[in-house]
């Protein structure tokens, strides 16, 4: 079909007819990338460049001064930087693991098992896709206080791991797996849990990676938990420490360098994990539609 002029999805190589798309996408990408390039550049500026007038976008003589200051600033307040980092890593690892686990279990029951109230439950979950946690900060606090979770490590994790979007994505993904697979395993005497672990989990790995990424972003970047539900300074997370930098450094120019370093540290794990797993995410998203 040499005369076919329409859309060529996923072309295998570059052709000059694609130039018009590049002409639009590349400026947009630059606009999006500039602030991020700026953060990277700013984080490595020595103080004379931070104060320079007129300000320079790119760093000339990169140093690690800002990172060093960032580490020492933490210990001044009595809590070493490593403690915040440890808390963040611990909470994030536990949170991502639990989130993937409970979400996939629930998604399997929603997709393949039969029980009363299943439809209602999925409808409520779909409604909750529109849920904005920030709107119920206060009642959430009251609930957490009532349950007695204040100043408990778990409070940094538990409110975040039941993600309606995660359940939705995994359920849509499991819907695609053929029932015959499950039926034949049942004939061989496998229990539902065995089927889930041995057959379903390997198939839905891409969806699980996606849930992992989403919950990672949520937990790693969360400051609300440390701010509201935890009073003990030594239990708070890196994201919380970073969010207090503006007041700690008094919003000075030197402080901006430190904050840029902090932004970079909190951003890097997100982007690295996403780059590694992006193929799986795209695979999951193909099944993401609301039907």
């Amino acid at each position: 079909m040499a005369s076919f002029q329409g859309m060529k999805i996923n072309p295998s190589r570059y052709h000059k007819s694609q130039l018009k798309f590049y002409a639009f996408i590349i400026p947009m990408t630059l606009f999006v990338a500039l602030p991020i390039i700026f953060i990277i550049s700013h984080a490595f500026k020595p103080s004379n460049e931070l104060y320079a007038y007129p300000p320079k976008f790119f760093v000339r003589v990169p140093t690690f001064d800002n990172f060093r200051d960032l580490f020492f600033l933490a210990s001044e307040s009595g809590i070493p930087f490593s403690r915040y980092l440890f808390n963040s890593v611990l909470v994030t690892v536990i949170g991502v693991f639990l989130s993937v686990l409970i979400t996939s279990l629930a998604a399997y029951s929603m997709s393949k098992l039969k029980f009363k109230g299943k439809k209602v439950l999925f409808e409520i979950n779909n409604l909750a896709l529109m849920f904005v946690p920030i709107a119920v900060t206060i009642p959430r606090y009251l609930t957490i206080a009532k349950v007695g979770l204040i100043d408990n490590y778990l409070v940094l994790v538990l409110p975040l791991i039941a993600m309606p979007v995660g359940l939705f994505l995994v359920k849509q993904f499991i819907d695609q797996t053929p029932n015959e697979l499950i039926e034949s395993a049942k004939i061989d005497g496998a229990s539902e849990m065995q089927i889930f672990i041995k057959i379903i989990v390997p198939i839905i790995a891409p969806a699980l990676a996606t849930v992992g990424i989403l919950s990672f972003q949520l937990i790693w970047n969360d400051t609300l938990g440390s701010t509201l539900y935890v009073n003990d300074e030594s239990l708070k997370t890196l994201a919380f420490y970073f969010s207090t930098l503006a007041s700690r450094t008094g919003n000075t120019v030197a402080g901006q360098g430190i904050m840029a370093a902090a932004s970079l540290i909190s951003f890097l794990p997100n982007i690295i994990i996403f780059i590694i797993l992006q193929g799986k995410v795209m695979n999951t998203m193909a099944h993401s539609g609301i039907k």
Partner: protein
Amino acid sequence: MIRRMNHPAWFFTPYVVLFTTFIIIPVIIAIVLSFTYFNTIQTPDLIGLKNYIELLTRDEVFMQYVLPNTFKFAFIVGPVGYMMSFLLAWMLAQIPHKHRTILAIILYSPSMTAGIAMGVIWTVLFSGDSTGYLNSLLLNIGFIEEPIQFLTSPDYLMTIMIIVSLWGSMGVGFLAMLAGILNIDPSLYEAAYVDGLRNRWQEIFYITIPSMKPQMLFGAVMAVVGTFQVGAIGVQLSGANPTPQYAGQLLVNHIEDFGFIRYLMGYASAISVVLLILIYSISKATWSLFGERD
């Protein structure tokens, strides 16, 4: 043990318990509290609809600033961000895989920077004195003579909030739409051209969008939610709640203002309920915009 785990309860209980505790119950409490006077110290006093009446008739800040701001913000950031996501996804689908992956990662990356710490970029770029990057640039090319107080001036705050939010609007919905477009069966296009499709616009509206309706819908819901989620940005940028002359005050900030600054939890809850209803109705409206539900 695992060999005998057959009951569905094994699977859904953990999720349902957490979902109920941290989503359902707080929403119910918000609704109940919204009918009370509650200052966090005394027990809540039932006062009926008084909070809502006060909110709709006597709260001048709400009517004059918060509600119009929220609508303005939502109706620009939501649709523009959504259309941008679709357009970029549509174009990305038509370039080779390697380039697409790199560009898509960059476009998605701002939505990973949700952390408050990222605010530093904007405070430096838009800083109000001549050392701010934008001010310095504009002064240099002679566009302005005096530095502009971008972040503390009521004239600019909303515009900057919108730009910053659009910057981060290529999120999960964008990825879903990209995947949706890539999954459309190419033979559909060829068949449509044989049947007399004439141009790219017809193609988009008759083939592309209908074939990926589920993803379009998912993207739309994510766009609506995302828009209301980033509401705190005005306070972050200007460094004050309330924002200067309420220029960047959105519903979310109004809740915080009454809940955590004035400790009027009942009243704040009423605002929360209004916010949830608003998001719900806008999502539903978007839903029906996409036509027939099957």
